[in-house]
């Protein structure tokens, strides 16, 4: 069972209280973008074994969106952070580096 601390209300919420929102930090390509960029924005998702960044919503709690960094292989949670950022904060990256030295995820690492 996955348990994430919602950074908006502070609650330790188990998976049944949360709604998964898919991969985090997607760069949006909208009208005017190339077909390749738009296709990639719509459909291309990473599916890593290891460090992963996701969006979650505290659906049965405060209702707010947030970000989570976790390991898909072990379910270890590195941390949760605000939805209002476009990349993982340094504090979260440091926590991951302490546990998974040399990690990479898309352009981050």
């Amino acid at each position, binding site marked *: 069972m996955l348990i994430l601390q919602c950074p*908006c209300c502070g*609650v*330790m*919420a188990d998976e*049944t*209280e949360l709604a998964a929102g898919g991969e985090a930090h997607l760069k949006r390509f909208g009208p005017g973008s190339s077909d390749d960029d738009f296709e990639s924005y719509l459909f291309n998702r990473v599916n890593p074994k290891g460090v992963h960044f996701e969006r979650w919503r505290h659906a*049965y709690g*405060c209702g707010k969106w947030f970000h989570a960094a976790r390991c898909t292989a072990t379910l270890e949670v590195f941390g949760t952070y605000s939805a209002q950022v476009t990349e993982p904060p340094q504090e979260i990256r440091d926590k991951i580096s302490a546990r998974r030295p040399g990690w990479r995820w898309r352009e981050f690492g």
Partner: protein
Amino acid sequence: MSDPVSALNRAAFTGIAQIAETGLQGMITLRGDLASAVVIKAATAAAGTDMPARGEAKIKGEHGLCWMSPDEVLVLCPHAEVAMTIAAMEQVLAGEHALVVNVSDARAVFRVSGPLAREVLSKLAPVDLAPQAFRPGMMRRTKLAQVPAAFWMEDDRTFRIVCFRSVAQYVFDLLKVSAQEGSEVGVF
């Protein structure tokens, strides 16, 4: 004018804990910037209690303020005073970006009481309800089995639960099963 009736008309059940639908309770949703002096004034004047911090419920009899999310509090007041309370709040909030809505009749309220009340709720919600983890004064929005609900404690052995009116019978049935005779777990 017709008389307002609560969802289950004060249905009650006694098993390893006492379950009761509490009847009519005034409930007003207030959304806005909870750090705004105007919003705080509207909320505290309506309820006659202090502003709740994150995760808190400030309850005084039929009045109270429950923290629902970073931009929402639930104002409790007697059912008959809702219209008057909303009018007063809207006056305070004039010009402020905020929302005040009467949700009293969209909800149902239950009380679960007795020495085993924590056990009855623990079977239904993914929440640590150990006495040191969940105490009177705290507020929790979560789910009871399959439906959203919120609760706080009136005292160390009494929970007040709010759910949507449309699932009132479901929640009452859940609570009855969870509180059936002989179902003590003895975990707390």
